[in-house]
């Protein structure tokens, strides 16, 4: 059941612009897929498949890359989130914006996925601490 949720999550991320959804919702769906996996499979096996440490990494990298992609147009003269100045040559501005936002959405999705998972793991930690 888990892979299906993940697939649906990815679909939501990719078709965010003109259908309801987008980076944030997609990320939440992905996170829920892992959480569902955690709940039903128990911790030992689920941690093996998807250790919390990796979730933390994914969250951080996702956010970092999002900021970087948003920054790239700045180096090429555009405004902060203005993807029409992306370096890909042959596409005109409108399409460029489309792809730019798509890339940004992906990174947001991953970032949200990672961070929500971290929240869940932190709350359910076993050891005292």
């Amino acid at each position: 059941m888990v892979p299906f949720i993940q697939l649906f999550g990815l679909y939501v991320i990719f078709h965010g612009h003109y259908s309801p959804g987008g980076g944030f919702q997609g990320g939440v769906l992905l996170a829920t897929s892992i959480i569902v996996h955690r709940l039903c499979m128990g911790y030992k096996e689920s941690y093996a498949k998807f250790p919390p440490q990796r979730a933390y990494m994914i969250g951080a990298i996702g956010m970092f890359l999002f900021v970087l992609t948003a920054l790239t147009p700045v180096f090429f003269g555009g405004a902060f989130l203005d993807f029409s100045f992306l370096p890909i040559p042959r596409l005109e501005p409108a399409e460029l914006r489309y792809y730019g936002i798509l890339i940004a959405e992906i990174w947001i999705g991953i970032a949200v996925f990672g961070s929500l998972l971290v929240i869940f793991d932190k709350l359910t930690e076993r050891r005292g601490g």
Partner: protein
Amino acid sequence: MTDITIHYSYIIIIILLAIGLYGMLGKRNLIKKCIGLTIFQTAIFLFFIEGGLKDGGTVPVIDPSLGVEAINYINPLPHVMILTAIVVSTATTGVAMALLLKIYRKYNSLEEDVIMERMKE
């Protein structure tokens, strides 16, 4: 009183706000305070969504049949704002939960007055 029915949604929002506020301030248990907070926030989101409604408008995604005039689409802007507000409220609840965890580990109780005495020593 006639137009009370039109504004029924406002009344619900006000009730929710009252519940949320009471939950946050009235209740002793910290978890109940968090629940009160979330109710309060959702009430506000409802207000925003309700504000953007137009009777007869469809989902704000352009489909060729309906053409482009704004009249038959509901106003998308509040929805977008609420999207961010939801992100914020989840983050706040996340932080609140982490705090509660820490308090619970130290004072192993979530009743505010119990914690207060334990804090005294």
